[in-house]
């Protein structure tokens, strides 16, 4: 068996992109959360961290000296760095009464499952590496000829034809099933952390988290089946391919299910208005009460990274993934008129389109977090079982009927 070096290189690039995107987005979202809170409470907010900038000033006895009076705050973005530094320099204390193995395992489960969920989400359009350096501007530059020849050779299939890759870490045909399987494993993190901590608040938080997460998993799975029977596949790459036209976007086909899916996802992520497992006012910090330093930070980070993953999933299913309206592989098509674009431009535009949609949906989740008051626990369970589940069942029957009528015509 020969190694497919081109595939390995693409995988490595995708891996670095996914890890980099999620880690940085997780950090930036802590700042977005604070800034959004400040904006909505009419405060300035997140302006304490700064880097002092030297400013020359007149000394009293004549001459000049340096004053460190100017503060470079970068609209508060240093707060994310300060957070990380603080958690890294705190004592990682393991209480003597915990079950050590499970106590240490739980943060890893929380962290890894969130990252692993992103593996099947396509974050960019198909890339044909051999054509990346073509185009009206770049093809004139002779210095790039060597690189162009190398790309064509490395990413060719040996017979001269160029290969096309998808910007997606793992192109699995089970797609969404993988997403639900892996994100469902996240329940273990909360349940095990709560049980192993040997603290009554942790135990209650862990139980509440597991009961809530499994309740909403049913509605989560049911709410999007309508989309899959329209698309006829659960492969996320194929689903995005079929959303080329604006009329096939999930938000147009099933607008009500977008809200249901997002609500179920926020409940899965245990954020306000569904934050009973953490319930600061009654359970201290819920299932991670006994955690300190970076282990607690891993729970926090997995929550913020999960916001980004949810945004990516909702983008893929409901907002056309990486597609830009009217943009096809060779440029913009407006009816009969075509604006041709180079391959590189299309790839970059689609990456930007995906990132922009993800950012807007992240912001939307944080907006919800600062807008709604939290539910009572019985209200959460009632919403999950008596509202979301029957609505998604009814939607499935209705969608199946309409799809069959449209199909028959």
């Amino acid at each position, binding site marked *: 068996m020969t190694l497919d070096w081109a595939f390995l290189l693409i995988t490595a690039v995708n891996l670095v992109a996914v890890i980099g995107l999620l880690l940085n987005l997780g950090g930036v979202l802590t700042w977005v959360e604070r800034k959004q809170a400040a904006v909505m409470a009419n405060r300035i907010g997140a302006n304490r961290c700064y880097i002092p900038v030297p400013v020359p000033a007149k000394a009293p006895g004549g001459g000049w000296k340096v004053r460190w009076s100017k503060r470079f705050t970068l609209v508060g973005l240093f707060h994310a760095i300060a957070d990380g530094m603080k958690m890294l320099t705190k004592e990682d204390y393991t209480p003597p009464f915990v079950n050590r193995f499970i106590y240490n395992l739980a943060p890893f489960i929380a962290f890894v499952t969130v990252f692993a969920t992103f593996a099947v989400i396509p974050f960019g359009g198909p890339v044909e590496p051999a054509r990346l350096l073509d185009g009206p501007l770049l093809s004139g530059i002779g210095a790039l000829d060597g690189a162009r020849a190398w790309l064509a050779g490395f990413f060719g299939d040996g017979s001269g034809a160029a290969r096309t890759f998808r910007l997606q870490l793992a192109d699995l045909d089970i797609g969404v099933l993988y997403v639900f399987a892996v994100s469902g494993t996240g329940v273990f993190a909360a349940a095990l952390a709560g049980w192993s*901590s040997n*603290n009554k608040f942790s135990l209650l938080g862990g139980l509440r988290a597991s009961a809530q997460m499994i309740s909403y998993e049913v509605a989560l799975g*049911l709410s999007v089946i309508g989309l899959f029977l329209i698309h006829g596949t659960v492969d996320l790459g194929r689903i995005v391919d079929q959303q080329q036209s604006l009329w096939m976007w999930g938000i147009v086909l099933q607008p009500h299910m977008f809200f249901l899916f997002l609500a179920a996802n926020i409940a899965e992520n245990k954020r306000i208005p569904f934050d009973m497992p953490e319930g600061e006012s009654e359970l201290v910090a819920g299932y991670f009460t006994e955690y300190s330093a970076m282990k607690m930070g*891993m729970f926090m980070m997995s929550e913020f990274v999960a916001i980004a993953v949810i945004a990516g999933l909702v983008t893929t299913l409901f907002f056309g993934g990486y597609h830009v309206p009217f943009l096809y592989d060779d440029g913009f098509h407006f009816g009969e008129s075509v604006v041709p674009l180079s391959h590189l431009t299309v790839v970059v535009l689609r990456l930007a389109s995906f990132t922009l949609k993800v950012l807007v949906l992240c912001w939307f989740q944080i907006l919800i977090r600062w807008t709604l008051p939290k539910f009572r626990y019985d209200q959460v369970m*009632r919403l999950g079982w008596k509202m979301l589940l029957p609505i998604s069942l009814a939607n499935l029957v209705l969608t199946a*009927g309409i799809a*069959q009528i449209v199909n028959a015509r």
Partner: protein
Amino acid sequence: MVEQHNHYLPVLALVVAAFGVAAAMLGINALLGPKRRAADGPAVKLEPFECGSVPIQLDNRRRVSVKFYLVAILFVMFDLEVVLLYPWAVVYRDLGWFGFAELLAFMLSVVVGLAYAWRKGGLEWR
């Protein structure tokens, strides 16, 4: 034509990488953070946290309310039904009206189950 790689190797790579990032963060924390022996610290550091009051008991892994198990059983039931619907949804276009009739028959059993649980108060949180 876009290639379909049905490889699970990248998934494994992502899991290993995420695990590595987490381990690295804990490693840096172990290097930078202070290390004190628990016995040298205040005595409250050895107790489970209970908002500053003296803990009522030291072993908190006790039996829990049965209502959590009821939720778990309902979850297993309904989530399995959801999983059964996925392969049906993928081939639905080819099944035609027969597929729709199948869905109605399946939904009947699901709805009967849901209605029974609802009437019996299994969905109430008391």
